[in-house]
């Protein structure tokens, strides 16, 4: 099993999966192969979460309704004062 799918997971799903895998590995019910798979997937999930947390490219936008019922977004610039 590869862990490529992890790159597409949301932060919330990644954190949830990570917590589940930690508990699973600590349960000690797995055989060695399964343990290693779980371990590697957990590390991949942790790295995914960290990547999202370290991201600095968050967007701050405004949204307005348009007359035809659609929406229009624009970057938000704070106005002082």
């Amino acid at each position: 099993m590869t862990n490529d799918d992890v790159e597409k997971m949301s932060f919330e799903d990644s954190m949830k999966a990570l917590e589940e895998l930690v508990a699973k590995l600590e349960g000690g019910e797995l055989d060695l192969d399964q343990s290693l798979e779980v371990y590697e997937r957990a590390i991949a999930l942790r790295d995914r979460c960290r990547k999202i947390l370290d991201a600095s490219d968050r967007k701050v936008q405004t949204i307005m309704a348009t007359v035809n019922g659609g929406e229009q977004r624009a970057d938000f610039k704070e106005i002082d004062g």
Partner: protein
Amino acid sequence: MTEAITVTELNTRVKGLFGATPALQNVWVVGELSNVKRYTSGHYYFTIKDPGSEIRAVMFRSSRARLDFEPADSMKIQAFGRIDMYVERGSYQFIVETMRASGTGSLYLQYEQLKHKLEAEGLFAAARKRPLPRYPKVIGVVTSPTGAVIHDIITTTRRLFPADILLAPAQVQGEGAAASVVAGIQLLNRAGVDVIIVGRGGGSIEDLWAFNEEPVARAIAASKVPVISSVGHETDFTIADLVADVRAATPTAAAELAVRNKQEILRQMDDDTRRLNKALTRKVDLMRSRFSVLDSKLDPKRARERVDLLAMHLDELSSRLGAALNAEVGRMHKRYAAAAGRLNPAVLALLAAKRAGTATASARMEALSPYSVLSRGYSFVAGADGRAITSVKKLRVGATVTVRMRDGRAEAEVKKKVISE
């Protein structure tokens, strides 16, 4: 003759009598204000009178926000409140909860009416309150684009967690404000945000009025995503605050509720990593010790040899440590020197073997296991102490022994023994 009581006791009895008399509680009284004094404490003291009588009255600071006018001498008013005893002075007074100028409709009254109506519908019920998402990707905000509210939210979330912010600019006071706030909530619902903050800064009851209007309350209740309200400050709750899933005292508090602290999450992930390493290390250690114990039971003479063989295989695995693992270990050492240090060499070797794709780790460990012998059809006999019995001479006729096979064990009785020379 009954015993004499103290003055304090007497006045306390009167106080109790007032409190227990419904006709003196929650009454509207009509009259004119005089001797209005506002103290630095924020409390108002005044007299309410009509041509025939007068009564001392007090309005506490906490009730002041309910007024939409400034009390002044000779105003004709209706005051709502109750009679209470001021025990220390032996005088009674009227405690005013709210007032309205005679002839005008009171905002506070409208507020109370809507509050009761929505409360009866169950819109404020605790069961309706939804949990906030733990890690929102997009936070919707309905507020003025120029106020301090949006500034505080942007600053706070930037500090805590990298969530996107989508602002639906709204007019938050004056004519049309309620409709503007409603449109914002609905627009953000369509845009698919994870949580919505609805807010404005503090102000008078008139300034905050949009948040006491029914359409705003309905829009919050109908929102598909949880709503955090941050309207005004401190003690006074607007209807919007009551309907919202969570009420925050300030915009900064609202932002803190919406996102978790990044440092906290990082600490949790460090903890997760330590737990993973510990669990995996324990697993491998457990398997190693299980093999060597079984080995020694099965054939004490070869135990040493077996352990050496195991070590040799592990060395071989270590030598296959691939570039991928080196990178992983390097990264672990950099950020988690302590945690990674606890991963023993056997774990690293097994990881390396797995990454190299040479063979499954279990198969390699399995090759070293006494169980692999059992799976080929051999079995061994153990005595009551669990140790392998390797000589017929050690068996006693009539003794119970355990026969260990690949998939389990059987209890057997020794009926006869023949020693072959």
